[in-house]
């Protein structure tokens, strides 16, 4: 039953995608512009990428961003996985529903609120704003995404696999590392990639909690753009878009594959 696309369908599809991606496409195209003027096409060139890599300030910001993303995603992955285990495994403990709600809250909380509340907290505990505060803030922001992904996998996890391992002589901790962890690993990796990309492109929470010497790439780009557009920023943004896209695609593929595999094993 292949239904043909009508002209109406095609038009709405094209319009929709254009609406979503035309601005980004424009940015990507202009990052290869030979002209210095952002709005005038002067032929194809990759000179701005070269200039970008020679731009000390931008490269430094990129390095900070990368370190924060890696670190915060790692912490978020460990904490998020533990939360997912607690939520799926420990039955009906008192306050379970509340706990579930609280884990998911950062997902729907306006970023401004998250950023501001964290800033107030850091001021209250007298923590100097900088690299560590952004890392902590991003951990808070991204942990729930890891929990969601890992929890979805644990819901379909066959508990008799763990019972079998214990029955065969493996104590609980060894059971976890030899049976549970390998089987939920794809979802943990997917969760990590999601957390990583979220941290990579966050501007709001980061700018609330930043301090001297901890300028992330999104903050840097934002502040530079206010002084005037430069093709270098286009190039930096293009690379950022590429990284984020790659991360999301990988995360999707990995979690999809693990779902397929667990389904295949189910019968």
């Amino acid at each position, binding site marked *: 039953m292949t239904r043909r696309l009508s002209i109406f369908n095609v038009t709405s599809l094209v319009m929709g995608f254009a609406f979503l991606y035309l601005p980004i496409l424009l940015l990507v195209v202009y990052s290869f512009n030979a002209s210095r003027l952002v709005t005038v096409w002067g032929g194809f060139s990759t000179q701005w990428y070269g200039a970008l890599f020679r731009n000390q300030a931008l490269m430094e910001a990129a390095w900070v961003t990368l370190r924060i993303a890696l670190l915060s995603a790692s912490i978020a992955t460990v904490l998020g996985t533990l939360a997912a285990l607690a939520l799926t495994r420990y039955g009906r403990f008192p306050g379970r529903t509340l706990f579930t709600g609280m884990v998911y809250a950062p997902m729907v909380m306006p970023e401004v609120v998250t950023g501001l509340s964290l800033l107030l907290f850091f001021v209250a505990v007298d923590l100097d704003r900088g690299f560590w505060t952004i890392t902590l803030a991003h951990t808070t922001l991204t942990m729930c995404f890891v929990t969601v992904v890992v929890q979805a996998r644990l819901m379909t996890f066959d508990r008799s696999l763990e*019972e*079998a391992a214990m029955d065969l*002589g*493996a104590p609980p901790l060894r059971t976890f590392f030899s049976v549970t962890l390998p089987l939920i690993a794809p979802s943990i990796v997917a969760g990590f990639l999601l957390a990583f990309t979220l941290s990579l492109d966050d501007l709001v929470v980061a700018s609330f909690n930043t301090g001297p010497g901890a300028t992330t790439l999104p903050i840097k780009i934002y502040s530079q753009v206010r002084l005037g557009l430069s093709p270098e920023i286009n190039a930096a943004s293009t690379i950022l878009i590429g990284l984020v896209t790659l991360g999301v695609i990988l995360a999707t593929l990995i979690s999809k594959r693990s779902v397929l595999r*667990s389904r295949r094993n189910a019968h």
Partner: protein
Amino acid sequence: MPPPSRQSASVGAVRRAFAPWADPDAKPLIRFENVTKRFGEAVAVDHLTLDIFEGEFFCLLGPSGCGKTTLMRMLAGFEFPTEGMITLAGQSLEGVPPYRRPVNMMFQSYALFPHMSVEKNIAFGLRQDGLPKSEISDRVGEMLRLVQLEKLAKRYPSQLSGGQRQRVALARALAKRPKVLLLDEPLGALDKKLREETQFELMDIQHELGMTFVVVTHDQEEAMTMADRIAVMDHGRIVQVATPGEIYEQPKTRFIAEFVGDVNILEGHVQGQESGLWHVKSPSAEMPLTIDDPDEVLHSGQAVAIAVRPEKMVVQREKPGPEAVNVLTGEVWDIGYLGDWTVYRIRLATGEILRVSCANISRFVESPIDWDEQVYVTFAPGAAVILAE
């Protein structure tokens, strides 16, 4: 023809040399002593006492929710009794976690580790014991031969058929040579043909290894084929523990008679006893029924149920002679031809429907009994069991 005397008679297929349960000096391998398991308000196992002996092929049989799975999970260590005690070879199992029990289990879902090959799955338990590599690979090889899967050692569970997975699960559970092997609905996921073959294979393996097998099943045919003894469970209690033959031929209660195999139940009242035979007046028959069940202690006027298996009844068109006992009159309501058997459903004047099965011993029948025909159903005094109500 006089019925064989009770002392010399036996029921079912009996492994004569093996009957430790009949020996008062025999020490049981597994002992449940007054075990109760509650889940909140619900009672899964209710003050249950049971002995299982070494080398036995023991079946826990019952409808779903009767507590048989809970009983097995308590043996494996996944659940602990609320009250009472379980001992294994004289040692209490109280507080012993599953990974420290000399008991292994084959799971209903098989629970094969999907990220490990067949080989690695079988080796898992041996690796936990820290055996040397060479011994592990020897033992894995031995297990693969036992279940005839040598060629599939490197495959992953997702690349195996249902029957092959079942074998891997069995090999993995056997690899550690446990004192007791627990099997949870071991054949439930197989199709009928494969199930029958595997039943006999399991019996062979159990015999070869001399291991104690405890099987949980809801399939009475499976239990009858494989078990040395069957414990029939209902509502957390054991209703009868006996050999398959005894369960089938001398069921203790109406529940067992109806749960194991097909049965016709005729209600009635005891009239009296005469030269060892009971006379029971039943509304289903004109004349009092004559039943040879001397073990029952009954008194006159007592309400009883008479249980007769379908294959122990005879259906005929001709009126039996005046000397015949246990004659019921009815008309053919339905006929089911099964190939090996023909099943007649006979409607009595009281509206009861009897099930009579008849082995098809010859290929052609001159004038077969037809629908709506008036027929007579008879059975021998020894064919029936009296169940006190």
